[in-house]
């Protein structure tokens, strides 16, 4: 299945397009690079697909610039879904869609650099910045939650300015702690659980993006904004003790 549906071929040659993923998945790709309009398109298109309630579709999810559908291959298949998806794609200019309703601004205290966030210097150098300038950029304005994934409740946030388009490491760091702030490819992440990664560890928070036993296991939603508030190591430890799940994070409605 390689059918390409072009809602605006002059602007986005080849996008959006559909690709199969294994026996039970199909991907609607709005972009193959960091692109704000494609991210908004993915969020809006997923909501539209969910509204269609097609037979055999078992769940959907967005990534930064794509929508994934998982289906039961005994009930439907790639061809049937491709036809339906193409029909839905031509219905609107998905790239012109706005951000979802109900967004919030989160203020999350974070420590940058030092032994608890040892790769600040390395990441700053790759971005062509001094460590202080890097921290200033990371804390000056909010970053948006572009999607949730990789690990439960893990927010991919951004986009950071273009000079933050730094590659992942070629080797995996065996384990980083929960609450770690990492950067790569114009994005920033807060790890909800301890995890191995190829991203660089520049900050540390006490925030848990996955709280399995809480009424709301996943506090962040795609579209939310996150503002990092720089704190000292002592302050971070105090916040973690007082608020083991949130690390001092607060949220307010964005309108």
């Amino acid at each position: 299945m390689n059918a390409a549906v072009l809602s605006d071929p002059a602007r986005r040659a080849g996008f959006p397009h559909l690709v199969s993923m294994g026996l039970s998945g199909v991907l609607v790709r709005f972009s193959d690079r960091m692109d704000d309009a494609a991210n908004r398109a993915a969020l809006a298109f997923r909501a539209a697909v969910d509204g269609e309630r097609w037979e055999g579709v078992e769940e959907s999810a967005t990534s930064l610039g794509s929508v994934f559908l998982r289906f039961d291959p005994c009930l439907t298949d790639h061809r049937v879904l491709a036809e339906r998806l193409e029909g839905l794609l031509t219905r609107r200019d998905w790239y012109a869609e706005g951000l979802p309703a109900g967004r919030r601004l989160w203020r999350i205290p974070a420590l940058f650099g030092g032994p608890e966030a040892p790769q600040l210097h390395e990441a700053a150098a790759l971005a062509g910045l001094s460590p202080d300038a890097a921290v200033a950029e990371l804390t000056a304005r909010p970053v948006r939650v572009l999607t949730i994934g990789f690990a439960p409740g893990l927010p991919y946030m951004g986009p950071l300015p273009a000079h933050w388009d730094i590659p992942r490491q070629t080797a995996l760091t065996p384990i980083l702690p929960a609450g770690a702030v990492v950067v790569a490819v114009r994005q920033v992440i807060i790890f909800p659980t301890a995890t191995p990664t190829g991203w660089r560890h520049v900050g540390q928070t006490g925030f848990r993006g996955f709280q399995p036993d809480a009424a709301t296991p996943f506090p962040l939603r795609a579209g939310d904004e996150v503002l990092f508030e720089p704190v000292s190591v002592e302050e971070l430890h105090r916040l973690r003790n007082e608020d083991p799940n949130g690390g001092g994070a607060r949220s307010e409605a964005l309108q």
Partner: protein
Amino acid sequence: MSGTLIVRNAGPGVSVQDTGRPGWLAQGLSRGGAADLLALAEGAALLRQPPDCAALEMAGIGGTFEAEGDLIIALTGAPMRATLGGAPIVWNASHALRAGQRLVIGAAEAGVYGYLHVAGGLATPLHMKSRAAHLTAGIGAPVAVGERLPVGPTLKGARPGLLLDAADRFRGGTVRIVPSAQTGLFAPEDRERFAATGFVRDTRGNRQGVRLVHDGAPFAATGQLNILSEIIVPGDIQMTGDGTPYVLLPECQTMGGYPRIGTVVPDDLPIVAQAAPGTRLQFRFVGLDEALADYRQRRKGEAARLAAAIRPLVRDPAGMADLLSHQLIGGVTAGNDLDEEEKTCPARWI
């Protein structure tokens, strides 16, 4: 009748598993569940209960278990040395585990994941609608020594002394893969080389995925360090930055930016999960249509095929275990006479 399974001793990778927790992909939680879903289904078939009953998954080595109340158990997946009250018992079979009896399960003789099922299913608490421990997500944990695992009501029809002829998927071999979202980023000659390469399952591997090693050049995709992160599914074969493939398993990440050369078809994924370190694996690209047709064909007769693979454990003069089972078939405790509970699992069968 219901009882308790007491953990007297356990290897480090023994955890409660069922068919997992689908539906949280948008929140970043992979399905999880048994690494070898076929073994889960085989155990359910042996005990004549629904296939989503929770069982104990044992990675590499089992443990010592004791019944509180009479239980009927089944053993499936990677064959492990097992004794009941000191006498060896047959794998891929159902057995009676009487109150106070000790079941000792040792190391895997082939494969990785063995399963200990109980009639009625393990009735441990549900977390987000599943009993499966998701170790990488921090849901649940491996079972601990002294833990008491509640067992659901024994279902009508469960009986000891049955044997299942299981497909041998514990020694590696050739695994079918279909193209995936990033297959096209690999040059045609690299895809050909991938399919022609003999891989060996590395020592690094767990329920998240297994690393493969090979002789020869690493596998790289165009622009692979700057690929936009996209959704990942179990079975995907991901190339990390050093060009080494990982085959992703039920506890895999849900999204990632390392390129994926293909996806193992679901029916062949147990071969990868069950490949112990050092096992040889090779991959063969098949078309989507061919793979889909085969998948549907297998689903059609699945329950009947498993049921047809079950037969009574026959008397085998070589083993006390079989004598024991033979006697049990004779009617000491035929599962038929047990409770009249509705034929459901305590899980989420409804």
